[in-house]
């Protein structure tokens, strides 16, 4: 029997090492991917609203239902996402839009776009912003020559060009902003959860031991 025990110990330690390895692999894969939550992201651009939807592991929600409601809960339109999880629609109305994504198997998420970010038809201002002033001193202020007055039409055109350029520039930023949500699960959260469970275990054991004694 004593001859047998070191071999048994060896086998046990090998098994425990393999368990530790398995746990490490699980942790590594866990921190990289996470599943089971859908995320909807939407932004207005020009007179259209673009939506992107994906699972929290980055997989796109294909062929999922998107519904758009106004601030009073009336349904304005609905559609389905394409193969890349995208769906876009022309701005239906100048109200706060509530966009609801319903993916398969009971997954759901929603996103609000406030009315201020929307533009009805191209070029039309949202009501919150100041109306274009008729006269603006822009050119020739330094050399003393009489400043040329911009007509409201010109101001409007400049504004549109600037906005278009800004939209183009901000597109990657928008994408970046929507990304961190999808990788929200960190090692700290996982460890915290496990710690929480063992804390609950401690509380249960404490009360049971008091009852027992």
């Amino acid at each position, binding site marked *: 029997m004593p001859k047998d025990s070191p071999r048994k110990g060896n086998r046990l330690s090998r098994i425990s090492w393999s368990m530790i390895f398995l746990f490490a692999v699980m*942790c590594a894969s866990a921190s990289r991917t996470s*599943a089971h939550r859908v995320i909807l992201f939407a932004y207005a651009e020009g007179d259209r609203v673009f939506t992107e939807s994906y699972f929290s592991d980055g997989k796109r929600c294909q062929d999922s239902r998107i519904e758009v409601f106004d601030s009073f809960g009336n349904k304005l339109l609905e559609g389905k996402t394409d193969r890349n999880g995208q769906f876009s629609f022309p701005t239906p109305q100048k109200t706060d839009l509530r966009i609801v994504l319903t993916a398969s198997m009971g997954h759901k998420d929603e996103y609000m776009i406030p009315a201020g970010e929307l533009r009805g038809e191209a070029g039309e201002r949202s009501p919150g912003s100041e109306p274009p002033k008729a006269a603006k001193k822009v050119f020739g202020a330094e050399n003393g020559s009489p400043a040329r007055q911009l007509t409201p039409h010109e101001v409007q055109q400049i504004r549109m060009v600037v906005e278009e350029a800004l939209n183009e520039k901000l597109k990657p930023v928008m994408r970046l902003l929507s990304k961190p949500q999808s990788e929200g699960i960190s090692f700290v959260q996982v460890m915290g959860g496990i710690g929480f469970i063992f804390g609950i275990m401690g509380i*249960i054991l404490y009360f049971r031991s008091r009852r027992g004694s």
Partner: protein
Amino acid sequence: MHISEGVLSAPVLVTGVALTAAGCGVGLRKLDYDRVPQVAILTSAFFVASLIHVPIGPSSVHLVLNGLMGLLLGWPAFPAILIALFLQALLFQFGGITTLGVNAFNMAFPAIICFYLFAYAVKRKHNLISMGAAFACGFLAILLGCLMVALSLTFTGDPFVGIAKVVVIAHLPVMIIEGLITLFSAGFLKKLKPELLEAIHAKR
């Protein structure tokens, strides 16, 4: 298989909470002092398992481990799964607080069914029967879980067969993987710590 907030109607949510509360009551009553640490370890395993994503198939699915929970814990799987789901909802935003009752019941009820169906067979001396039962336990727990999810979603107005088909097909790889995990875990415990499998039946 976490159902999100705002998908289910109030009666379904309330029913889920009531059933889960009842299950937890039974589970806590059957929980021995000595087995609390074991329950905690399996709760942690269940908690982490949902982060392990199975990259096969058309949809986004992950491990559940409810078959293993049922097999090793019996009724205490109910409070264990409830706590794990609560933390998943809190920390990962999987599922939601209002749907906690329904989600916990959907996962824990199949675990209990599989416990009653397979726990005795897994303990048998005959290796093939034991292994087959362990695999079936992991497999069936997911399959029943899928059907439970489909059943809860039916009350929102969609037809049962349609949803069930989608959910079951998406989880087929998970069923097989969980069957294998349960098989190896049970085989491992049977060799090294057979008293863990026996302990469940000590207090009934």
